[in-house]
C-alpha cells in the first residue's frame, strides 16, 4: 500500500512537470511568436497543459470532479476554436496579414504623449 502511494506520488509529479513544460512552451509561443495561428496554437497548448493537471490530480485523489471539469474545458475549447478561427479569418480579410503587431487600432501610444 505504501509503495503504491509512493509510486502514485512520483507519477503525479512527472505529470505535473510535463504539464508545466507544456504550459511554458505555450506561453513562450504566445509572447515570442507573431503569427496569430501560432499564438492560437500556443494558447491551446496552455489550455491542455492545465487539463493534464486536472486529470492527473483527479486520478491521484480518485475523484471524478476534475475529470468532469476537464471534459467541460475540452468542450468549451472546441466552441472557442470555432470563434477564434472565424475571428482570424475576419482579421486577415481586413489587414491581409497574420502578423499580430498589425492589429493595434486600440493603441493609446500617441494620445499618451500629448
Amino acid at each position, binding site marked *: 500500500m505504501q509503495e503504491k502511494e509512493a509510486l502514485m506520488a512520483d507519477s503525479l509529479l512527472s505529470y505535473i512537470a510535463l504539464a508545466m513544460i507544456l504550459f511554458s512552451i505555450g*506561453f513562450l509561443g*504566445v*509572447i*515570442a511568436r*507573431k503569427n496569430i495561428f501560432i499564438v492560437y496554437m500556443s494558447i491551446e497548448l496552455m489550455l491542455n497543459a492545465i487539463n493534464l493537471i486536472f486529470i492527473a490530480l483527479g486520478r491521484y485523489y480518485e475523484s471524478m470532479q476534475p475529470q468532469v471539469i476537464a471534459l467541460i474545458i475540452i468542450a468549451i475549447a472546441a466552441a472557442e476554436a470555432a470563434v477564434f478561427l472565424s475571428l482570424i479569418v475576419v482579421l486577415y480579410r481586413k489587414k491581409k496579414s497574420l502578423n*499580430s*503587431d498589425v*492589429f*493595434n487600432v*486600440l*493603441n*493609446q*501610444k500617441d494620445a*499618451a*504623449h500629448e
Partner: protein
Amino acid sequence: MSNFLLAWIVLIPLLSSAALGLMYLFSIKIVKIPNIVFTLIGVSAPFASFWIATTFFLQMIGNSEIFLYKAYRWLGVDGYDIDMGFMADKLSIFMVLFITFVGGLIHLYASGYMKNDDGYGKFFFYFNLFIASMLLLVLADSPIIMFIGWEGVGVCSYFLISYYYEDEKNVQAGNKAFIANRVGDLGFIIAMITMFYYAGANGFDYINLEASMASVPPDVLTFIGLALFVGAIGKSAQIPLFVWLPDAMAGPTPVSALIHAATMVTAGVYMVARFHFLYDLIPDVGLIIAYVGAFSALFAAVIATKQTDIKKILAYSTMSQLGYMFIAVGLGGYSVGIFHVFTHAFFKALLFMGAGAVIVALHHEQNIFKMGGMKNKTPLVYFTMLIATLAIAGIPPFAGFFSKDEILLTAFGSGEYLIWIMGVVTAVLTAYYMFRLLFVVFHGSNYKEERKLHALNKSITMPLVILAMGSMFAGLIGVPELLGGHNLIGIWLSDWRNSSLHVAHDTEFILMAVNILAAIVGISIAYKKFFKYDMKIVPQYEGMIWNKFYIDEIYDRFIVQKIKKISIFISYKVDVNIIDMVVMGLSRSFIRGGHFISKLQNANTRFYAFTMLIGISVISTYLIMVMR
C-alpha cells in the same frame, strides 16, 4: 399677545429689500420696471415698521413692560441653543422709532435725489437692507443676534459708499470703511467670546447676562468692557478708528445722511447703553470711554474748521457729536447720550439733506468756496439749514441745545472738569465751523457764473421741512426740570440710569449760560470772518489742520505700508517659492509619472501577455506563500 409683530419690524424692510433686489435684476435683464414701483415699495417699508413700532411704544407708556419674541431656533449646539430672538424694551423701541422715522424721510428724499440714477432699484435694495440690519441690531435680544445686524449695517455701508463704483477712489473709500470696521468687529467678537466663557452658562441673552454679570471677576469685566468699546470705536468713528468716516462721504448724499449721520454710527453709542449693566460695574472703563469721546469731539471739531468740502465738514461734525454721546454714556448718563443720539439724528440728517440739495442745485459742486449766495436762490433750503445749524450749535430752544447742555452738565456734575472744558471748547468750535459753512454757502458772493440752477422737486424739499420741525421741537422731550419742563426722556429711560446727578440749580443755570455763550462766541467769530465773504479767489488752505493732522499719512506709513510689505513678501516670496513649488511640483510629478506609465501601453499584445503572466505569478506566489 402680538409679540410676533416685533419680528415684522425687521422683516418688512428685509422682505421689501429682497423684492426690490429681484425686481431690479428683472428690470435690468428682461423688462424695465418704472421707478415709481421701486419708490412705492422702498419708501413704504420703513414707514410700515415705524407704524408697528408705534403700537409697541403706545403699549409701553406708563409701565415697564418688556416685549420678548423668540422667532425660531437659530443654532443648536449640544444642548446650548441660540434663538433668533427679539426684545423691545424702552431703549430699543425708542431707537427703532426714530430710526424708522428719520430713515423713512431719508428714503423719501433719496427717491428725489437719485431720480435719474441708473441703479435706482439697486439703491433702494441697499437702503432697505440697511434699515433691516439696523433694526435687527437694535431689537436683538442677545449679543450674537446684535452682531448679525452689526455686520449687516457694515456691509450695507460698504455697498453704499462705493455705490458709484466706476470711480476707483470711491471703491477705495468703501474698502477703507470696511477694513476699519473690521478692526472694531474683532474687538466685539473677542468681547463676546470672553463674555460667553465667563457669563454665558445661564443663557446668552441680555436679561440672563445681566444676572450673571455680577459673578464675573473684575479684571475680566474690564477686559470685556474695553474690547466691546473697541467695536464701538470702529462703528462710531472715534479716535483712533475714525479715518473711514470722512472718506465715506464718497457715497451719494442720502447715504451720508442715513448711515453716516443718523443711524449706523450711533450703533456704538447704542451698544454701550445696551451693555449698561456691564459698564455700570466698571466706571474706570467708562471714564476711558468719556475721554476718548472728548478727545474725538475736540479733534474732529478742530479739523472741521479748515475743511472746504461741504460733506467733509459735516462728516467731521458727526464725529464730533458722536464724541459728545460717548462722553455722556461713558460717564453713566445713558439716557443723556441716547437723547443726543435722538436730536442729532434729526439735525444731522437735515444738514446732510440740505447740503445734498445745494449740491444738486449747483450740479454736484462740493467746495463751499465755489458756492455762495444760495440764500436767495434756494430760500427753503436756507431756512431749514439755518434751523439745523442753530440746533447743532446749541442755541435754545432748538433740539441740540438741550441734549448738549445735559451732556456737559453730566460731565461737570461727575467732576470731570477736563472733559467739561473740552466739551465747551468743542461747542465753540462747532458753532464756528457750522456758521462758517452757512455764511459761506448762503451769504457769500462768489457764485458768479450764472448757470441755471438745477430744480429741486417736492420729494427733496418736503423731508427737509419735516426734519426742520423735528430739529426745532425734538429737544422739547428733554427739557430739564430747571426750566419748568419735564425731562420726558429721562423718565422714559430712567430704569437704567446710573448716576442721579445732584447739581445745585444756580450751577445749572451758570452752565447753561456758559453753553449759550460758547455758541454765541463761535457764531460771532464766524460772522466776523465769513459773513458776506467775498471769495474772488478760492482760498487754499495748508498746514497741519487742513491736512487732518496727517493721521491718514501716519496710518499709511506705519500700518498700511507695513502690512503691504508683509503681503508682498508673502505673495512674491512665500507663495512663489514654497506654495507654488509644492503645488506645481506635485502636478508636474503626476504628469511625468503619467508619461512614464503610458509607455507601458504600447499596443504590443505579446508584451501585455508577458505582463499579465508576471502579475499572475506575483499574485499566486503571494497566495501560496503568505495566505497558506
